[in-house]
């Protein structure tokens, strides 16, 4: 009997274009999917959920999702919830900032070293959720 292929965890950042925190959600996601857990995690284009792309909606219903949001609007989480996706965790960057008040991220196009540090802290939280749920 062949071993059942373990489904990957999908990390979904909001990628907000208006604030540096949106870029940090995106950076944190790539740190997880490309550096820390490349075999266990993947990402998708959030806008595909916004336009109700059928394949993407099916994917988030079948695969555990962790959302990473940059502001109170929580677009990533709300898009997943709207489609009844399998939400296994959510991270709000604003909470991570409160835990690390000395880190002052730069701009949307250049998050600066503090933004990178913040992204790594967020990435660690994502890794912990994946570990706890695996």
């Amino acid at each position, binding site marked *: 009997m062949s071993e059942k292929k373990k489904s990957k965890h999908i990390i979904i950042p*909001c990628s907000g274009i208006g604030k540096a925190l949106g870029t940090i959600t995106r950076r944190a996601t790539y740190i997880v999917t490309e550096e820390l857990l490349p075999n266990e995690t993947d*990402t998708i284009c959030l806008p595909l959920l*916004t336009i109700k792309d059928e394949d993407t909606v099916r994917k988030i219903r079948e695969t555990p999702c962790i959302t990473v949001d940059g502001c109170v609007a929580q677009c990533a989480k709300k898009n997943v919830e709207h489609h009844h996706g399998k939400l296994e965790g959510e991270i709000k960057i604003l909470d991570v900032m409160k835990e690390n008040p000395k880190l002052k991220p730069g701009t949307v196009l250049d998050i600066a070293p503090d933004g990178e540090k913040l992204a790594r802290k967020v990435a660690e939280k994502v890794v912990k959720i994946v570990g706890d749920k695996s």
Partner: protein
Amino acid sequence: MKIKPKIGLVSCSGEGISEGMISRVATRRILEERDDVVTICLPLFLAGGQEERDFAKDNPCITVDGCSKMCASKGVKIYGKVQPKSSIVISEIIDRDKRLKPKSKSRIDPEDEKLVHETMKIINKEIEKVKEKEE
């Protein structure tokens, strides 16, 4: 006196493809260079309220999409119930010169600057066209 609406630039910023990073960076750079454009986070069309959905009605929109799925363009049509004034697709720019294809979805490499600049040039041109038509 009637105040002219700003041009709405809507980028897909797709996380899953390298072209999404190009759409995001090119759009953001234009926003920082010009004062006649505004933007909205695309996922807010679904996650936000009526005010966000009215963005495309209130501002003539130019969409900047990474691929042929054209999420930004479709988002404007679905939620704003209007057609974008212009739709730019990064994969179509690459089709005209395959050497421009970016390798990474997580960063802009020095060799990707050419594609970012080409995209910005097209966005600026489309902004001028839309402004001319709106006057």
